[in-house]
């Protein structure tokens, strides 16, 4: 097995998202390279600050939904006109209004399941995947700005710690993360 170098992470823990946003702005002004930011909930305005582009998940959702619509509608059309035509309540074989509820349900189902699965695959998450967590408090009430400091000198790390404390971090910690 090839030896992998663990990622050395230096991070500041913040108590409030407003302080967090200000700290990120400070870091950008100081030209610091942020590895990642962690938050228990979506923080308004965080994505553009970090330079993240808009998620394309909703476009995928629309496509999955459209596939669901077509699947349901075409399948029922095929079943009730070609494969196994049956008369229900004296209606014609191809009775569009009676297809609508199932078409609607499959649209929702395909869009929902498709988006969840896409989200898991893109983020490398899902059942059975064991992701290392930087700090368990990010799932509760703390916000974290993390720096990858493998190539930093002790002096640089010290400066970074001071920067984090100076911008309102309540704690500054380091942790080895599996790469």
């Amino acid at each position, binding site marked *: 097995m090839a030896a992998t170098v663990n990622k050395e992470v230096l991070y500041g823990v913040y108590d409030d998202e407003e302080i967090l946003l200000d700290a990120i702005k400070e870091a950008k002004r100081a030209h610091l390279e942020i590895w990642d930011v962690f938050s228990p909930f979506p923080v308004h305005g965080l994505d*553009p600050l970090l330079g993240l582009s*808009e998620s394309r998940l909703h476009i995928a959702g629309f496509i999955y939904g459209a596939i669901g619509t077509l699947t349901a509608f075409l399948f029922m059309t095929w079943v009730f006109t070609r494969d196994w035509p049956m008369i229900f*309540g004296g*209606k014609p074989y191809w009775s569009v*209004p009676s297809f609508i509820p199932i078409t609607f349900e499959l649209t929702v189902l395909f869009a929902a399941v498709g988006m969840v699965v896409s989200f898991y695959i893109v983020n490398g998450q899902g059942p059975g995947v064991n992701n290392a967590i930087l700090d368990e408090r990010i799932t509760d009430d703390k916000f974290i700005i993390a720096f990858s400091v493998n190539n930093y000198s002790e002096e640089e790390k010290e400066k970074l710690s001071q920067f984090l404390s100076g911008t309102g971090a309540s704690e500054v910690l380091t942790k080895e993360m599996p790469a």
Partner: protein
Amino acid sequence: MDNTFKFESKQKTFLLGGMALGLLCLAITFLTDDSLHTRFWTNYLHNVTFFTGISFMSMFILSAFLIAWAGWYTYFKRVWEAMTQFMIVGLVLMLPVVAGVWLGFHRLYHWADADSVAGDEILQWKSSFLNPTTFTIASVLIVAIWYFFANAFRKSSLAEDQGDGSYDQNKRQTVLASIFLPIAGFSSAAVIWQWIMSIDAHWYSTLFAWYCGASWFVSAIAITILLLIYLRGKGYYSDLNASHLHDLGKYLFAFSIFWTYLWFSQFMLIWYANVGEETVYFQTRRDEYPALFFLNLGINFLIPFFVLMRNDTKRKAGTMAFVAGIVILGHWIDYFLMIKPGALHTAHELMGHAHSATADAAHAGEHHSTILAGFHYPGLLELGTMLGFLSLFLYVFFNQLAKAPLIAKNDPYLEESLAHHIEPPYTDTF
């Protein structure tokens, strides 16, 4: 810009001109109409119920938002407060219809005709609810109660402006809203049954009140969007931003889908069960009004659904004004489809085989031969009448808006409303 809306004389003249056009159209309709004046009275009822409902729904929206502790709308809530004030005008405009139910000078409602009821088991069975007394209670008493709440709500809101920033008036409004909501929920159903559903006196649907109410709700949101874009263009509400518009767009989008859901639920159950007494409602509309029947679904569902699906279209004044305008027209057509076929049928029944425009139209409907403006599709007189009522609605609205400050400066939610925006890349301007 200052905090008070100025109702300029140019706007007044324009709206008075619109009202004159409406009156002229009503007069022409009345004079060229058949002996029962079916076209005149259906046009009258159509527009009165439509605009009174929009006014009622603005009170419903205000109450529901207050109860839900919503804060984003507070900046422009005076718009809705002014819209609620049209209810008293709607009440007065309903009085001729109420009088006609007693005196018989219009034949909108089959159940109001004593001779018809005498020979009709279904109408006899329904007469404990469909009779002039309950109609009067629904039209006068219930609408008066709505207006009472709307007025008390507005008074409290205006008193807040004079106050010292305490929460007393806000608590008072919360109490008013929480009493109003359950009353409004149940009573609006009764009013809709009386005013609109009972036109098809033999028919009923338990979903009808919701479906009709959803139409009012969508129209109220759409007219709010147009008014806010207009007012901002005039220089008022300069802090109104794209996020406020975005949220109104979400309401327009969501409730257009909600309306479609109710429309389809009502249609599918009746279509599937295929009981003659119920199916006749949709059969008439599909076979004799095919263009309007499908247009109704197209412009009230497909256009708002596909245009407003993306979030950036909800943040632009142009697309929002386009969809809002289309949707108002669409729901007005929806009301046309609710009211005209049943009234035409009633007129046909009451006139027997006499020769007149309506009787001919009714025959035509049954024999699919001629198509008549004002009965099978909205003619120019209908559009003119609609513009007249719209002008009246806007006149009352602007008049009431001018009477109070545009911004409720002591409302505890005002700060939240002003802070209602999101960070770049989205822009606040629209």
